[in-house]
């Protein structure tokens, strides 16, 4: 099978975010492979291990995003491609999905494209489905389990997470599958993998390389980034000699404040 996994580089989730010069700043916190994408990479690798083929990791971002692609390689992906172009720097999901779909079309006959549920920076959760729509493939979103995958018949059956439960869906391939954390436990990169990744040459595709010329204007702009202010809370500690007294005191306060 020809498997593609799309990943993004994001600030570490432990980063403290502030606004500097009107844009988000994560200070000197490290940039990492988006945590959701680790599950997508893992699922891509498991799919290859079960059915053969190759895994291509693909990212859209600045040159520095090569580091996240190297992590995907270190986990076991066969090759990586970075789409990077100054004209794509302020891409919204509409433009990002156009670039990713255009790049995927340059790859010879992919059977399946994996995404993580969301990127922990922009939190949109829409890029995977939009890539599917652009490719004209089914979008299998919020997938918590793959119950069947038949490369010969080119079909896949998945469990999608809805608020009300899991929806079981059978779809033809190729398809775009966006995964949630429940689907697997991502592996750590192996020592050999890290060594191989450190030497890997990652090709960079520009907007014109993927045929996105002229680059469309993004639909969305972000006039202002704001650090939310939460009024300084001074915590009222309830007192009591015993847990029962503490509990009773808390219940009284919650009732007084009409919180329950």
């Amino acid at each position, binding site marked *: 099978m020809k498997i593609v996994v799309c990943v993004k580089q994001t600030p570490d989730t432990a980063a403290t975010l502030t606004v500097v010069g009107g844009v988000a700043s994560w200070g000197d916190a490290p940039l990492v492979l988006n945590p959701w994408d680790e599950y997508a990479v893992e699922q891509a690798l498991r799919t290859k291990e079960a059915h053969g083929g190759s895994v291509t990791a693909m990212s859209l971002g600045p040159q520095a995003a090569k580091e996240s692609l190297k992590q995907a390689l270190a986990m076991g992906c066969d090759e990586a491609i970075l789409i990077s172009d100054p004209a794509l720097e302020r891409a919204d999901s*509409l433009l990002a999905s156009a670039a990713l779909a255009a790049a995927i079309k340059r790859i010879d006959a992919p059977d399946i494209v994996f995404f993580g549920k969301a990127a922990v920076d922009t939190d949109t959760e829409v890029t995977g489905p939009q890539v599917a729509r652009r490719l004209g493939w089914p979008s299998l979103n919020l997938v918590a389990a793959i119950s069947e995958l038949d490369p010969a018949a080119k079909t896949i059956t998945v469990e999608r997470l809805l608020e009300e439960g899991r929806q079981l869906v059978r779809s033809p391939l190729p398809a775009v599958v966006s995964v949630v954390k429940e689907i697997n436990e991502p592996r750590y990169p192996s020592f050999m993998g890290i060594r191989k990744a450190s030497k890997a040459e990652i090709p960079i595709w520009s907007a014109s390389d993927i045929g996105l010329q002229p680059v469309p204007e993004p639909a969305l702009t972000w006039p202002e980034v704001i650090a939310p202010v939460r009024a300084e809370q001074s915590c009222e500690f309830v007192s009591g000699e015993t847990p029962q007294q503490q509990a009773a005191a808390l219940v009284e306060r919650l009732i007084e404040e009409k919180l329950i």
Partner: protein
Amino acid sequence: MLLVYIDHFGGKPPVAAWEALGAGSLFVTGSDLKAVVMGSGVEALAGEAIAHGAHSVLLADDDRLKEFRPEVYADGLSQIIRQSGADIVLFPTTSRARELAALVAVDLDTGITPDAIQLVRQNGAIVATRPIYAGKLLTTEVNLARRPQLLTVRGRSFPAPDSDPTRSGEIARIELGLAQPRTEVLGYKQSGGGVSLSDAAIIVSGGRGVANNPALHPPPELTNEKEQEIWRAREGFKLVGELAGVLGAAVGASRAAVDAGYIPYAHQVGQTGKVVSPDLYIACGISGAIQHLAGMRTAKTIVAINKDADAPIFKLARFGVVGDLHQILPALTSALRQRLGK
């Protein structure tokens, strides 16, 4: 013209669907609040939309819409939006509607703003405020040049209008040209049940601390330390669940608790779990890692129960109890039972 897409599951709408209608009512003058209802056998839902304040409903009632298949719904909704000439379309932020809005945005070559918590009209465009980095920051976002503007509104950010069955309005049936669906819905599996985190007015959450009750003695057949720890944690989560039961609350958990295998991922609150904003959030044995705080900081009132008086969670908390949750929670549950008469 403004359209509100009414999300539902088998004809049953989540509260968030009416909240989206409430958000839409802020931007219409006169009787121009239009709702879209799609599905099979959903005429009653169109009536409910009128009762909740829609002035008219575009109803696509079609066998092929019986199951929610995003590609089929997107084909239909894109047609409806084109025909209606709507320049703003609002959706609730549910897993279905968010994906649907994303697909429709591609069809209509326009922007999609998911998860708006505030909407303001400025110079003919809706400027949305939405959380990024799991709410550690907010951004304003606007689609200046393209129409329609597509936005999903986060649950519990806009008031749901009251239902008034005496309201009346026009229900216009729409025939859609739909291609043969390529995906097949084989069925559904119920997951857990209970109160959904996103809709919950009260959430009781447990962290690492729930496993920390040395007074409990695991059954002798559990010899492995990890198994004993998980057994202790599950006993601890029973206490969390009992408190949640008395309050009609949903059960949440920190990432640490989920990663340790104490409770399924569906309960995780935080940056790589669910971002929630209930009226009351009770954090039990949660120290308050930044990833967790990002997921619940917008709760109206936070109560923290923790052994460590210096735990960061107390900085966000309005009320704090310093103590052992294994003693505090049963006491709290029984005190509440008495006071609330349950």
